[in-house]
């Protein structure tokens, strides 16, 4: 095997890995656990709040911080490739670049190449579900 072949194989492996991972995982180091309580009397809801660990993690820069996205550029290549392999029903907190908002009936979608995402609130976070093309 030449050095070039090895490098190409390594690059392919990295890309394949990028495809397999959901986009949100790329942010793993900057996810927060969202367990800090902002009121004392939260536990009036006994059913839910006893299990603090069940609370999902929340990406700290999820809020479409268009003016602040330090890893955005680094992600661009992998994310563009990932569009083709978006799994229907999976959720992500970040969209691939170059999406177009499309209103179909009462529902707003983000169309990103061939993939369609439907935004929704999960708690106070905006998350995107990969859906079948609505039209």
């Amino acid at each position, binding site marked *: 095997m030449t050095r070039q072949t090895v490098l190409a194989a390594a690059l392919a492996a990295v890309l394949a890995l990028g495809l397999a991972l959901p986009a949100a995982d790329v942010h*793993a*180091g*900057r*996810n*927060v*656990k*969202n*367990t*800090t*309580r*902002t*009121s*004392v*009397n*939260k*536990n*009036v*809801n006994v*059913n*839910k709040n006893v299990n*603090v660990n069940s*609370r999902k*993690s929340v990406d*700290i*820069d*999820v*809020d*479409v*911080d*268009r003016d*602040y996205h330090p890893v955005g550029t680094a992600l661009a290549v992998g994310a563009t490739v990932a569009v083709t392999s978006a799994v229907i029903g999976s959720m992500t907190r970040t969209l691939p670049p170059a999406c177009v*908002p499309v*209103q179909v009936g*009462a529902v*707003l979608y983000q169309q990103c190449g061939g993939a369609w995402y*439907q*935004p*929704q*609130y*999960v*708690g*106070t976070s*905006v*998350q995107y579900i990969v859906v079948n093309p609505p039209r």
Partner: protein
Amino acid sequence: MQLRDDIRRTVGMLRRTALAAFATAAVAGACLGPAAAQAPAPAREARAIDALTAMGKYLRTLKTFSVSAETAIDEVLDNGQKVQFGGIVEYRVQSPDRMRVEVRTDRRTRQFVFDGKTITQYAPRAGYYASVPARGTIREALVLVDRKYDVEIPLADLFFWGTDQAGLDDIKEAAYLGPAKIGGRSCDHYAFRQEGVDWQVWIQPGKQPLPCKMVITTTSEPSQPQYTSVLKWDLAPKFDAATFRFTPPKGAHRIEAAPLAAAK
């Protein structure tokens, strides 16, 4: 001249040493003397519980107010590192069922508008809003969005104190720590402990016992993250008809709010 300076220095030094020795003796005396004979303070000091009760009672008398809080929240990153974000929380309130809340941190901005029938969450930068029906009081709306949609609006305690859901029975330890200055205001400092959370509140003394500051420490987390808020009150705010009505700004899109799996 030289000699006199030396003497002055020596005398000064001796005086300081004597003062220090006296102070040490006084402290030791205080510790070993009367204090040792005293019974330990009760776990729940009545004074602290009473102050909390009085504050709650007063809060419930407020019909119209706005409160603006400077906040600092610790967040724990996946790698275990604790970081802090600054922010503000602004409540505009007309009891019992009108509320507009603005929550801004360095990373996230949210608005919540409750008009007595519907509560709306809006993310101005993303341009998304979600509305769900919520009838009843502000407190009931806060419980609903927390329980059903996992939406925790900060400082919800302001609407629980002074009700039968104030959680006073959950308090295991309560103490009065003394007077304090919060941004130039004189406030009394209290500390409380309960399951999963240690918390402190500074309360304005006198006829308007409002909270000046709060610190909430989540003790159920190993790194014990804290939420700090310093509150400024306006008891005679001016609101207009639009204050408690959510009108989608141009370009805003309505999306769904996913209910918690258990609440479906």
